[in-house]
């Protein structure tokens, strides 16, 4: 892995105009994607993770407003890019895999055509036979057996896992260098999930892709990510390498997420996070998680915490890291689990 940054999101803020007011969906998100690595963005529904990557793809809904920030890619700021500029990036440089493969494919168009359509965009002069050959190869490379026959089938003749493979094949058709996976396994069975994750890891190695992986599932992240950004209420509250996030979580939200994650060894009762995420029309003044945090300090309700540096790669936005703050006790489930993992390692 060389350390060249190929995509860099800086201080991105996005709001949605609604009848009730402006919804502050993303509030100052920054992260980098380095060549060949997988960066995960983790957070619950409504935390702004999907909005962030839609902004990267330039497919935000009509009522979205980008308040500030930049998305630097290939030496230019994608936020200022025209629709025409985007045309040369979307699909060909950055591919996207969707959350729900069941609805991501056009139900009345043959699978093959949906793939060759993408191929044709990169190579308008490609012959029918060549396009078909390439598409069948692509299908085989994502693990679709009997690809030549299935080329002429329709989405409804495919299972969920197979459809997700088709979606991946479409995303790969134009040979992008960045692959964005938006909860690619959420809609799938657990057994299929594992296979799709393996496939994503495999193609990432083979094609030397850089991957942005969006999920709410800490268990999934553990299998794929090099670096993790934990998002809450439109902000990245903690970022670090996978080891740092899993073994030394510093933000109370990260800890709560991890403590709520089931695994095979934990015998204690799993923790749940009380309350609901804040209404983003009126974002809370201080730490957005304070309301749901049993150990919240007074200042958490007053002032937004800055990022505290834990190591060169590990940052967290919580007052608990302030030198004067009382030391944050990790939930017991989590403490035991981390101890166990460290012992095994």
């Amino acid at each position, binding site marked *: 892995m060389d350390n060249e940054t190929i995509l860099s999101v800086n201080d991105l803020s996005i709001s949605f105009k609604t009848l009730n007011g402006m919804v502050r969906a993303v509030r100052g998100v920054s992260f980098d994607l380095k060549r060949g690595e997988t960066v995960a963005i983790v957070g619950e529904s409504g935390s702004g993770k999907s909005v962030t990557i839609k902004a990267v*793809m330039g*497919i935000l809904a009509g009522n979205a407003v980008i308040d500030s920030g930049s998305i630097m890619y290939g030496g230019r700021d994608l936020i200022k890019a025209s*629709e025409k500029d985007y*045309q040369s990036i*979307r*699909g*060909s440089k950055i*591919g*996207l895999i*969707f959350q*729900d493969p069941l*609805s*991501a*494919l*056009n*139900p*009345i*168009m*043959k699978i093959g055509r949906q793939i060759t*359509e*993408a191929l044709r*965009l*990169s190579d308008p002069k490609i012959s029918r036979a060549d396009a078909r050959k390439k598409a069948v190869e692509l299908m085989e490379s994502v693990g679709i057996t009997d690809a030549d026959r299935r080329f002429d089938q*329709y989405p*409804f*003749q*495919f*299972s969920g896992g197979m459809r997700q493979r088709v*979606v991946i094949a*479409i*995303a790969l*058709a*134009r040979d992008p260098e960045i692959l964005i996976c938006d909860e690619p396994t959420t809609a799938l069975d657990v057994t299929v999930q594992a296979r799709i994750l393996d496939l994503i890891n495999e193609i990432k190695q083979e094609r030397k892709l850089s991957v942005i992986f969006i999920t709410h599932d800490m268990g999934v992240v553990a299998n794929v990510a090099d670096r993790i950004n934990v998002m809450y209420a439109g902000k990245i509250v903690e970022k670090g390498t996978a080891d740092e996030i899993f073994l030394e979580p510093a933000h109370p939200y990260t800890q709560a997420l991890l403590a709520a994650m089931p695994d095979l060894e934990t015998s204690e009762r799993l923790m749940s996070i009380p309350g609901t995420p804040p209404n983003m029309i009126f974002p809370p003044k201080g730490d957005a998680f304070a309301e749901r945090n049993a150990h919240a300090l007074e200042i958490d309700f007053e002032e937004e915490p800055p990022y505290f540096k834990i190591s060169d790669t590990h940052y967290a936005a919580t007052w608990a890291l302030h030198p004067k703050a009382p030391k944050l006790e990790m939930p017991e489930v989590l403490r035991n689990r981390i101890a166990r993992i460290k012992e095994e390692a």
Partner: protein
Amino acid sequence: MGKYVLKRVGLMVLSLFIIISVAFFALRLIPGGPYDDDPDLAPEAQAALIARMNLDKPLPVQYVLFIKGILMENNWGASLKLRPGISAFDIIKERVPATMLLNIMSLLISLPLGILAGTLAALYKSKWPDALISVLVILCISVPSFIFATLLQYFPAYRWELFPLLFNATGNTAARLKSMILPVMALSFGPIATVCRYLRGELIETLSSEYMLLARTKGLKRAQAIARHAFRNSCVPLANIIIPMFTNIMGGSLVVETLFSVPGIGTLIVDSINTRDYTVTMAALLFYSFISVMTILIVDLSYGLIDPRIRLGAKGNE
């Protein structure tokens, strides 16, 4: 597929039979008979005519004779009053071209215009073109076709003298076509609005679908994505409303034909009911029913052509 078509045709024949039977008895419920108010007819002659047309027999016997005539001899009976003695079937045959021309032209105009307006409304959702089209749609759907017909006759035809007031059945082709413009317009406002409203809804739904997003992230331009992925998908359910639409146009044409005195089935059916010409009414009704069940059949069969999920549905998932 062949078996399916056969089954559908069988059901079609059954529906037609039920329609004929109900209509036969319903028609006889109208008080009076074909020769009641004819001052030229001596009572003896009247009695003789009634006997010849079997109208003196009990209703069930008349019904059996009527059905037998159709099945055994393909005989629809002769007109009782309008053109006595002429086969009802022949009278209908004469009137079909004018009606079909009117209806098909109306359909041919309504579909593209409705699709165009619906597409515009969907693409400019919540902007002024959408608002304007919505107002027009409500106007066109809620105002019945005979009001449009009267307005068209008054303004463009009577006041401005741009078009002839009535249908010109005898003139040359150009004159005939010109006289058809107003009746076709009167018939088309409603269907245009129906198609427009329906397509707008469908298209808005498809435009916000995940597969449109995928089409965009592939790198398709917005126009390309709409043309290839949204448009066809939105047209599939459109086939659904063409059936009631076509029968609606036919229903509207009953009145519009009379207003513009188009020598079509619509005028015929009104006249024949007024004069109790049972055989002609039956034949005309059968014609309308036949067209309706045929449209349903054609639309059902064409689903498979547009939507592979229906065509291949029987083979199921793998």
